[in-house]
């Protein structure tokens, strides 16, 4: 098989190494697909439009008749979008009501929804709102499953059959409306994630993470006599005071011979007295460290990434809420190599490209944990999301890393969102993880969740339950 030249030589080496060990045709195909992927990992941007294109781009789907109203048409009063804050106030009450429904024997009605508010320049905001729907008997107009949508009206020039506009199926650069693909300032992201977490714990009653170690409290103020003050105070620090006195007297020349100290000749200045005074200090120790690992290789394009990112948003939000932002999170992205990114925003928005080596991510986590000696102070949780493809098809590198990790980690949760490329086969990661027997050996420490690419939100949450319970 010939390989073209514009491929990353490092990757090529890797590929050849794997090839030498023997690959099935399917593995070869997936690897090659990723190898030739020319994508990069930049965050999304919206510059992808060809402005000179002859065909005009229609960004929004056309309005139907009933979407028009006098307020926006005549008085330019926009449809009022109430702020999220005003909604969250009543959320407790709503969820309480929802719980009641169940007791009364009716299905729950409140759902946690994510709205993507399209913004200028692609800066969509993601807002989380409680939603519901009033069910009625209504006609389903979308039942015709042909490639055409319901026709709309139009006006102006154009022959019959002529194409007059285009709308990308996926928004440019794969930044769709799906979870994890929208754009938001990091801050915006954070605050709504916090609210989502609140809703999640209330609604789904996710089990809490286990407490570990003595440092239970995550944040507290400790009042301690640690600040030093000269001249007056609550508690005389004798050692420090003596040192100070010595210092003073040395400079006064009252200590001629270091071997025979005659303290009776010492002068003591009022300033030499060092006192301890009360100080308020924040005890800022986190008890948990959560590693988010995401496969951002080429095969993750589209749905698998959306699912993984959506699930990680949910976990992240929930942690933010439950642990009042005191859980430390680390974010690691990997293709054939792993790298740590500074914040959730980058983690969330980086595009997919490149090949896949799951081991690299686990190795990086192991390195970080070792180097920073995290085991001593932290509960360590690792959540990994992938589509299950791995160039290292039998996990020769990955399994040892996982084993190493299980020694210290409180829980390792692996989510596989199938990409549908090898529809009927189980993915490599699933295969070798199962084959390793670790799942049965340490069911408490390692969890694996496999979902189809059409998984919906309830499925994601179920997945989280499985990973965390």
């Amino acid at each position, binding site marked *: 098989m010939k390989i073209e030249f514009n491929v990353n030589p490092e990757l090529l080496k890797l590929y050849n190494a794997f090839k030498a060990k023997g690959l099935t045709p399917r593995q070869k195909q997936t690897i090659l*697909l990723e190898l030739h992927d020319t994508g990069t990992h930049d965050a999304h941007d919206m510059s992808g439009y060809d402005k000179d294109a002859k065909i005009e781009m*229609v960004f929004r789907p*056309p*309005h*139907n*008749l*009933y979407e*028009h*109203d*006098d*307020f926006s*048409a*005549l*008085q330019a009063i926009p*449809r*009022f979008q109430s702020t999220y804050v005003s*909604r969250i106030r*009543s959320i407790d009450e709503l969820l309480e*009501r929802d719980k*009641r429904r169940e007791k*009364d024997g009716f*299905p729950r009605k409140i759902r946690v929804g994510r*709205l993507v508010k399209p913004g200028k320049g692609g800066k969509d905001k993601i807002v989380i709102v409680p*939603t*519901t729907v009033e*069910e*009625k*008997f*209504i*006609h*389903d*107009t979308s*039942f015709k499953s*042909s*490639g055409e*949508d*319901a*026709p*709309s*009206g*139009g*006006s102006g020039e*154009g022959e*019959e*059959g002529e*194409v*007059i*506009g*285009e*709308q*990308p*199926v996926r928004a440019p650069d794969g930044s769709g409306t799906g979870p994890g693909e929208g754009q938001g300032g990091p801050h915006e992201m954070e605050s709504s994630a916090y609210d989502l977490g609140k809703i999640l714990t209330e609604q789904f009653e996710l089990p809490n993470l286990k407490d570990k170690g003595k440092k239970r409290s995550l944040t507290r103020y400790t009042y301690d006599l640690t600040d030093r003050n000269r001249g007056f105070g609550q508690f005389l620090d004798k050692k420090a005071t003596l040192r100070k006195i010595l210092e003073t007297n040395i400079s006064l020349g009252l200590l001629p011979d270091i071997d025979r100290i005659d303290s009776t000749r010492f002068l003591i200045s009022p300033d030499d007295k060092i006192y301890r005074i009360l100080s308020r200090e924040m005890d800022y120790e986190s008890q948990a460290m959560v590693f988010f690992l995401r496969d951002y290789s*080429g*095969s993750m394009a*589209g*749905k698998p*990434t959306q699912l993984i990112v959506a699930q990680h948003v949910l976990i992240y939000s929930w942690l933010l809420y439950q642990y009042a932002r005191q859980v430390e999170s680390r974010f690691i992205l990997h293709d054939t190599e792993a790298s740590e990114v500074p914040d959730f925003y980058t983690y969330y928005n980086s595009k997919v490209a490149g090949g896949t080596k799951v081991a690299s991510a686990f190795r990086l986590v192991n390195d970080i944990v070792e180097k920073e000696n995290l085991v001593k102070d932290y509960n360590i949780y690792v959540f990994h999301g992938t589509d299950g493809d791995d160039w290292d098809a039998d996990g020769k590198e990955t399994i040892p890393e996982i084993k190493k990790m299980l020694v210290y980690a409180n829980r390792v949760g692996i989510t596989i969102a199938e*990409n*549908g*490329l090898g529809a009927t086969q189980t993915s490599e990661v699933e295969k070798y993880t199962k084959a390793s027997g670790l799942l049965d050996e340490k069911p408490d420490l390692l969890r694996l969740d496999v979902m189809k690419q059409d998984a919906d939100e309830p499925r994601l949450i179920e997945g989280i339950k499985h990973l965390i319970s």
Partner: protein
Amino acid sequence: MELIDQHTKKIMEGCKERARKVGLRFEDETLEYIVTNRDLLELSPKLMIPTLYDYWVHDVDVIKEKGRYELYPANPYETVINTRPAISFYNDNNPDWLNVMIFYHVLAHIDFFQNNLFFRHSWDYDFTGQALSDKRIIAKLRAEKGRWVDYVIEFSRGIDNLAGFHEELTRLNCMNITNGSKRMDFYFDVFLQSEKKVKTSEYLKEIERYNDCVSKFGDLAEQTFFAEVITKYPEFEAVLEKSTTQKPKQKMDLIQFLMENSEVLNKDENKWMKSVLQVVRKTSIFFQPQIRTKIMNEGWASYWHEKLFLQDDRIKGHEVEFARINAGVTSMPRVGLNPYALGMRLFSYIEEIADKGKYSIDFKRLHDAEERDQFDTHTGQGQDFIFNVRENLCDFMFVNNFVEQDFVTRHKLFVAGKRLNTAKMVWEYYVKSRKAEDYRQMLIDSLYHPPHIEIDMGKNTNNTLYLMHHFEEKPLVSEFIANTMLGIEYLWGGPVQLETSEIISTPTSQGQNALPGSLIPMKAEDTEPDVKWQRVLYTMEKRKLSKKTI
């Protein structure tokens, strides 16, 4: 909310004067309020009726994507509401000239509310007052019964789109235009059609025979006519006798039927539920005409605001600003539908055609294109004609009668199709058809149309309520069926069945994915798939839903 100031009110009164002069008719009193964003936040979930009853769903964002307008007959952002007096809402910083334009728009809406026959049932009372007393009833019940009130509201709202709006209108608009003979009416309207189920040709023959009788025998026509009828149908007199003694049966919609016949609702301790059902039904029926006259109502208002604004002597010098705003409101979108633009153009077109006398037999007999084009009898009846249209039609009739090829051609209208281009991964919008009939059909398809579901009395057995969904080549949204039926079961107190049609899911060839990870399977050139239908029967019993094919 506060009223507009005296200065602005004076402008409004000036507008009323001018609007009356051109023939718009509306009651003297109107109320205009300034609204802030905060007010809108409160008002929009309540469909701009400040006194509408409270319901928790109003506090939640309602999921919008799935046929929102099919679920709600009212626009939550109406500037003017159909009350007595009519209430309208304004931004507090509109300049005077803009207010003039909006006032004309609003006045035309009020004219429409108060003259279009589809609003007939709302003419005799003030809805805000009614709603206030309903709100108090519900608040009082809620204090007594707690959350159960909300369940009843929820379940009755689940079926409020099946409320018999047209039946209500029929009751009100029932005209007694018979020539006095009950026997004649019964023979032609009921006996021949429902009892004997005669063919159309025979029916026409009978009419002809009657007309013969009239021309031959004059006053004795009826007698002669029926002499023959009785020889043909000896039982006729007996059937007529029976029908006159029987009370005319009123057709009931689902909510009415439940109130009348549900054992649960008629238990003493549950009687309160009926008032909730009544409130929900009344509210739904009040809003129904709004959504059924969207194109006409907005078209009518736009037609008049443009016409009256340009004639108004008070605001000279703002023509350019007006033109900008007006174009924004009434320009035809390249793709999509705008009821303002479409309705306004259609009204103008109808006026012109009527002015030329083209809605006449003479014109319809012409075949020569040139002659048709030149045809003009200068009737001067255009204005009267459109006033008639605004009085008597709803959107369906408006579109169905008047969207014709000349109109479509003049405004360069077309049906815009949307298809997937798999090579470029884009949705393509294209000109699908410029034929009037296609355009008309597209419009009709996009109009509000709730499913036609009736109670099948013949199949109501053993305390089971049997609902029949009449087939109109559209299935119901399947994920809503369970909860809707759950609600009906609760209100009915026994098993509920729904007969409806569904598409037989044919195994679609699971094509290969076009791109890794993308969800759109590669497809051969789009061929219209053959849709096969089957009747299915849903049964909701003890809060469990089951389905079987029949």
